[in-house]
């Protein structure tokens, strides 16, 4: 289609000479376009696709990441994955974490966005405050909250005699994930609030006025008017927050290092630890391949289901 721009432009004298000249011009235009994309495509292949393929390749070997030689072992790593308690635990932890994180992040973000969209004082100030966590380093935020959980909260608990606060939840194998979840939500909401807020601003105000004349209450208004309009934002936020929480890494490194025991070891942390220092390069490569497939399937599935719901509304 874009080619027509050149052919439409009729030259004054349609001689063979000028046609070939025009062709030459078209060619040099295309050469320039190729030169613009090919180096980038090459680099992308070398530094992104090639390592990914290498990862798949190593997943069929028994390489430990250090020695010079290794053997092909077929699907052995994949079969062993499903029997390794550390791997199974990391999948259980990561999924529990990601589902809860996605649900809480979306409920809280939507609630705060509705609040910011209401007739309030100092909206821009609040908007700036709520977005602040998004610009901070996850790792440093994790370190700060680590101190809150290990020192501040137990201190308060003892001072005011609140039993459940007196112990450090990050040191408890059954509760440490809650601490990480709280910090994850604290930070991830920032981005989602802003997205929902920009969605809410597309809802036509006349609709609210008409419906309040009809006597609809706030609850009805939300489900009948607001939610259908922001449904596409809900879809995107659900998919993105689920995907991000499945990849949780920095928070855990800063707060528990995967412990106590292996209770908060996420899939990416397990791949990192096992692959680099555990001598499980090939085994964790197989884990990474499965992890990739899982993320892919979940994202596509979520998009399909949520989009269908959107259309039904």
């Amino acid at each position, binding site marked *: 289609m874009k080619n027509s721009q050149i052919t439409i432009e009729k030259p004054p004298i349609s001689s063979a000479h000028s046609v070939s000249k025009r062709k030459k011009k078209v060619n040099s235009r295309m050469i320039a376009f190729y030169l613009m994309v090919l180096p980038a495509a090459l680099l992308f292949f070398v*530094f992104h696709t090639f390592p990914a393929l290498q990862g798949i390749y190593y997943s069929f070997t028994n390489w430990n990441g250090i020695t010079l030689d290794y053997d092909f072992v077929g699907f052995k790593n994949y079969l062993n994955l499903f029997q390794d308690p550390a791997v199974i635990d990391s999948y259980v932890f990561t999924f529990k974490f990601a589902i809860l994180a996605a649900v809480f992040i979306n409920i809280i973000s939507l609630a705060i966005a509705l609040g910011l969209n209401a007739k309030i004082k100092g909206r821009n100030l609040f908007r700036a405050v709520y977005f602040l966590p998004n610009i901070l380093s996850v790792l440093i935020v994790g370190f700060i909250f680590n101190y809150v959980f290990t020192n501040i909260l137990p201190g308060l608990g003892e001072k005011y005699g609140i039993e459940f606060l007196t112990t450090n939840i990050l040191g408890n194998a059954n509760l440490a994930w809650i601490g990480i979840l709280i910090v994850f939500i604290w930070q991830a909401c920032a981005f989602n609030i802003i997205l929902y807020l920009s969605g809410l601003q597309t809802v036509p105000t006349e609709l609210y006025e008409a419906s309040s004349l009809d006597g609809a209450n706030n609850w009805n208004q939300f489900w009948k008017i607001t939610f259908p309009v922001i449904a596409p934002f809900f879809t995107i936020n659900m998919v993105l927050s689920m995907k991000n929480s499945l990849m949780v890494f920095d928070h855990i490194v800063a707060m528990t290092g995967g412990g106590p025991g292996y209770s908060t070891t996420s899939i*990416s942390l397990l791949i990192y630890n096992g692959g680099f220092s555990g001598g499980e390069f090939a085994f964790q490569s197989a884990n990474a391949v499965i992890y990739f497939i899982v993320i892919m399937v979940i994202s596509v599935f979520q998009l399909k289901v949520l989009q269908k719901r959107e259309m039904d509304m």
Partner: protein
Amino acid sequence: MTKRTNWTVTILMALGSLLILFPLYLTISIALKNPQELAQSALSLPLNFHWENFTRAIEATNFFNALKNSSVITFFTLVLTILTNSMVAYAIARNMHRKLFKTLYYYFVSALFIPFPIIMLPIVKQTSALGLNNPTGLILLYVVYGMAMNIFIYVGYIRSIPVELEEAAIVDGCSTWGVFWKIIFPLLTPIHATVGILTCLWAWNDFLLPLVILNDTADATLPLVQYVFQTEFGTDYNLAFASYLLAMAPMIIIYLFAQRWIIGGVVKGAIK
């Protein structure tokens, strides 16, 4: 219909924002206290400002070196990303009817779904084999990995620019390169801002990629330095928090002045 200020919601929003500001207050407060004051109360306002915590933190972590590393890496990532990614996106956007370019578009964008851990183990071997386990390699990886998202954002925008502008320039004898640099590149300014903001936030705050790629501690970025020194901070919380605050300060200061612009840029990038 005139509506009055909803004070209930205003108060709820204010209480909620305290939850956001509390960890920052805590950081500033602990960074300014000495151990005795901290032992008495972590939450109280700091009465005597112990600035020496900061000088100690600067020395202990070699702060200015890390600041320089982070700044250099972020700056070159930003400049190279904007110059190259927009150019690739332009070539793709104007040739979407051609199979090769369309394939390339999906090739780049589909990388958004590929989680980093599958690349992580081999890329570390690869960068160290190529001698790229240093800031240069890190910048290269940011520019290359950023393409997935940035090309998606740029292509969407470029396709909304009418081609008539370019046609006129071509008739005047302008080359494709000239068209891009003289006409398209300046027109992309609003979207450069979006891509630039997203790229800066990513490169500045990223932890995992510097952790696995950088080989020499002297090259460490600000977040990485906090991690490296975490064991040394031990229980010297005043020193640790002074260091955290120093590491976060540059971004917070920029945010104070440019928050409206930063939020706008991030929203535009997400809605595209």
